């Protein structure tokens, strides 16, 4: 039993470290995890799911705005990107944030094609992150079910 937990814990550690190393996450995520305690046991997953909902909504809005071949309302897109950037940086979704930065640049120069490309990228990145984090949370669940504790991961 203990070996299973230990194995799971190691797996969890490796996984989360890989997420950091691959640049999916940054320290803000650590901050989030630090905020989670007994009082708010599902804080991270809650915030993350909020974030993904937000993402889906924003991307949907932006893609609708960008669908028009002409007279794209860049202001609207810009505010969407801005929000996305804010929330992604708050969650620590680093890749999403980085794409948002270039997205914003495209938006500033009213480059529709660039925007579309960035939009796809954002979509891809956030979905990617979503699956990764879902895996992470599943792993967590399994550890908890196995009676272990979530190990603290020190990200240097």
């Amino acid at each position, binding site marked *: 039993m203990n070996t299973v937990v230990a194995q799971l814990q190691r797996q969890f550690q490796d996984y989360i470290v890989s997420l950091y190393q691959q640049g999916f996450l940054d320290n803000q995520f650590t901050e989030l995890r630090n905020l989670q*305690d007994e009082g708010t046991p599902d804080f991270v997953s809650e*915030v993350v799911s909020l974030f993904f909902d937000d993402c889906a909504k924003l991307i949907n809005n932006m893609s609708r705005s960008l669908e028009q071949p002409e007279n794209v309302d860049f202001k609207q897109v810009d505010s969407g990107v801005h929000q996305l950037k804010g929330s992604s940086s708050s969650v620590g979704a680093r890749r999403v944030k980085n794409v948002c930065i270039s997205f914003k640049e495209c938006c500033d120069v009213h480059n529709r094609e660039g925007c579309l490309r960035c939009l796809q990228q954002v979509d891809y990145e956030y979905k990617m992150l979503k699956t990764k984090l879902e895996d992470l949370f599943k792993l967590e669940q399994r550890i908890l079910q196995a009676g272990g504790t979530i190990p603290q991961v020190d990200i240097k």
Partner: protein
Amino acid sequence: MRGDSFSVSIESLPDSPMGSQKKMSKMFDKMSEWVTPWRSKSETPRETRILRGDVEQEQFQYASSHCLSSYYSVFVVRLAIMVMLAILIGLLTILTWHFTRVYTKQSLQTLAYGLRYELLQRPILRMWSVLNTTSELTTAQVKLSEYVIKKYDKPTTQEELVEMYQAMKDVTWALFASAKALNAITINYRNGFVQAFHRDPASSNTFYIFSDLKNYSISETGLDDVKMSLGHGWNNQTIHGNMSAIWYQQQLDPITGVKIGKPHQIPPDDLISIAGISQVPDGEASWHVTVSKYMDSPLLSAALPVFDASNKSIVAVVGVTTALYSVGQLMRDLVEVHGGHIYLTSQEGYLLATSTNGPLLTNTSKGPQLMKAIDSEEWAIKAGAQWLEKTYGSNRPHVVHAENARLGDQQYYLDSFLLNLKRLPIVGVVIIPRKFIMGKVDERAFKTLVILISASVCIFFIGCVCILILTNGVSKEMKLRAELIRQLDARRRAEASSNYKSQFLANMSHELRTPMAAVIGLLDILISDDCLSNEQYATVTQIRKCSTALLRLLNNILDLSKVESGKLVLEEAEFDLGRELEGLVDMFSVQCINHNVETVLDLSDDMPTLVRGDSARLVQIFANLISNSIKFTSTGHIILRGWCENMNSLQDEMSLTADRKKPWAPLKTKLVHHRNHSLKSCKNENKMVLWFEVDDTGCGIDPSKWDSVFESFEQADPSTTRTHGGTGLGLCIVRNLVNKMGGDIKIVQKNGLGTIMRLYLILSIPDNADQICQPDFSKYGLVVLLAMSGSTARMIQSKWLRKHGIATVEASDWNELTKVIRDLFETGSRGNSFDSHHNIAESLRAELSSIQEIKNPAFVIVVDIGVLDLTTDIWKEQLNYLDRFSGKAKFAWLLKHDTSNTVKTELRRKGHVMMVNKPLYKAKMIQILEAVIKNRKRGFCNRGNVSDESHDCLEIDPTQFDTCSSDDSSETSGDKSVKPSTLHSPVLKNYLLDMTKSNDEDSTTSEASTTTQKKKQEEEQDWKDRSNRLYSGVALDGKNQKSLEGIRILLAEDTPVLQRVATIMLEKMGATVTAVWDGQQAVDALNYRSIINAQDPTQEHKTLSEEENPYDLILMDCQMPKMDGYEATKAIRRAEIGTELHVPIVALTAHAMSSDEAKCLEVGMDAYLTKPIDRKLMVSTILSLTKPSTFLTDENLTRELS
């Protein structure tokens, strides 16, 4: 023809000599070479497209395609010009050829016609003359015959008849002999007698032919017959039928006519043709052509009747025969000269004469017969006749001019004329080979054509080459232009990329600074940690320093890029200029003391205290300048001078600075002169020109580099980097900032070693500020003894003191100090010996004597701690020595930042409470003096505990001013202990830190000194970056998780994620958080309160803020739906007007630029946090904004209580 030349010209393009072909291929090569780089280039920008945008791309493409098309157009134009040239040349050739040929031909033809006409005319004329001659002779013969016959009218006898015949014979002979051309003359009498003379050209004999007289008689019948049958009675039968007649031929001497030999009978066959009566049927002259067997040419014979006297009957017929061969001869002669053939025919087509030697007669069985021209043995004549026959048929016109008659295989001219003689029309035909006349012409024409064509082809090629050469120039220019366009494009791209770079750097500001800030903050925590070993502490401090340096460097780069990208927004806030500079000098003096360099601040008294502007940037300017000076100054001093001037005298000043070699003092006095009216004008304009100088005694800068040192990355000496380090950005930033503030900076000439950087800034002054507050110390009778090791600072300080009427004595070291002290305090007892023992300078003595005159002087002795000998323990004795005078004078100590605690403790123990850190400058001096004066006043009324009194009077709590300066948005967040305020007197900082602390607890002094040190450090680090100010606060609060206990926070955030995160974060730290979704809700949440306020105006504000203010702080996202953060803040601030409430609002934004910060602060927010939220930063910000107010209320409460 035209088509030919055209095709030639077209063909000549590709077929032309290799040269042009090469040229063409080269041209295409160039074109493709020109096209390809454009294409390859178009690949590269595609990658950077996102950055640069489509517009530029399109422009670029447009430019290149434009070039390409113009290049094509040049090519087309070339072709067109060539084609036109070809057509032109072709036309010219054709026309030239045509005209030369046609006109030549025509004129030649005219000439040829004339020639032909002439040619024919002559034989015809000859013919004519022959005919005429014959006719004349005939007529003459007839006349003679008529005469003779008349004479022997009606011979009746044979003798008479014979006689008459004899006479006739003689007459006829005479005629015959005279006309040599005659062939024969015949006289045929009515009775049938014939007399004839005949020349045989073959044997050149002359014969007389006569018929036998016996056969003829003079019978009436015969005459009657003739008479009867006039007209047709006579016919040839009379002669030919009269076969019975016998003919005799007698040879005659051709000249004399003498008979030679006997007449012999000849057969009728040999008889020549004799004209009979039949030939003159109508009594008129008749002509006909005959042949004779003696002649191989036709003969022309004319016949005329001879009438009798009555002129009614014909008595005889005279016939004259002429040979035509002379005509032929003539024609032959002509043809020999001109060539060709001529022949004459009768109307029936019988040949009369030809230019050839061919026979004209055919020998038939009946003797020679005339032959037709068609039957001629001569080829030319036959062919000509056949051609005529063939062309015109039987009824041809007699006049024909054919130019291109083809006979055989040659072209001939063929002309025929009609000589219309009565009874004998003659047709003349001239056949001339065409080549005789036109042959040369045709040949010439062909040659001319060839030459013309080749010439035009040559011209065409030369033209083409010329065009190519000419257009080559054009295309070269074209290429140059394309090059230029490309260059321009490249430049634009480079500029754009430079822009992007700047923008990138500016955008990176947040990303770069945040980690650095984190590093520094964490280090601060670490430093404040107690459990560090000394070694660790030193290391961490070192790291701290390094990170500060790194941050500064980053800030430098970012500042520069920000200034260059035009994003730098200067703040416009009030600040205390003097204090900013003092703080700066304080900070640098720490560095300078290590360098053994004095830092001196020398601000003139007329400098305004409060100015409006960007304090951080101003400080940055001087910090850069001073740090630059420090870098190059190893010994000596660095003086920061400042004086001011109003706008009006700026012009003079500018002209003055240009050639200013005088020291600044005269200028200053001049400026003081100006001051009176300048103050007035300043009131209106509120602008002031502030002059500053940073004067050092460093290595100096070469005059040639004076301008270039202000360029980026420029250093006066390349080796500087190695020796002193640095990036060369500092001065560039300085210049940029100075320019931005409407000023200018330059290096001016200095006497002696070092550099003077002089700059001026134009700053506005707040309206309400009374700028100059000059404390008047002269009336207190103060005497100041300055015992300072640094001569420059001492000199400047004493000068200032003297100017304000304070007696000042200077001492540079311990010995001097003791001398002066002794002199001052023991002068009464040992005055004379003092003079004799010590050689004090005259000035000092004068000073001393003047001091002695002051009644009830208050002595202030300012002692630099450096004057004491700290290396050994002597300083304690020295202190004891000085302590003796403590009753008579007040001691103020100048400490170094690294003065050890033992010294401080000792000083404090001895009751020396006035301690200031070096360097000493005006404000500190004033503070000391004021302290002394106040102390003295109290001392007069209550001679009690001196130190307590001094403490009371000097304790100036910074928080006192916060009540009225809480609007100063950003400043409140700072940890600077004193805010710029609207107080009228210069605000005193707690320079005399130790003084305030010393009375609390002696044991805490060490702690206090560390705080001082810390404060110094903080100041050093934090004056640049406002956001960094708070880190020391973080350091203190870092471990306290519940640091926000009890603070009520309104969070306006629309992003659910952020809202959640921030809420949790804040709640973790003990804050009460209310989250709203947009600005409107936030305003509503607060409006509730203001409504209450409005309803209940009598209620005290304090209690209101205590009880009714539901939130201590608002965290406001800037970008929100419905109402964004800016709007919401504005609304809240509007609602606050008229109340004394001020809810601190902290902006939360993902924008990290200073311009965004400026915008936030502009709308009335108090602080600014960037996303992602940094917990520590947020905590410290919140604390700095909320704590003072709680502190303030406490303070107020306590005040009220007391």
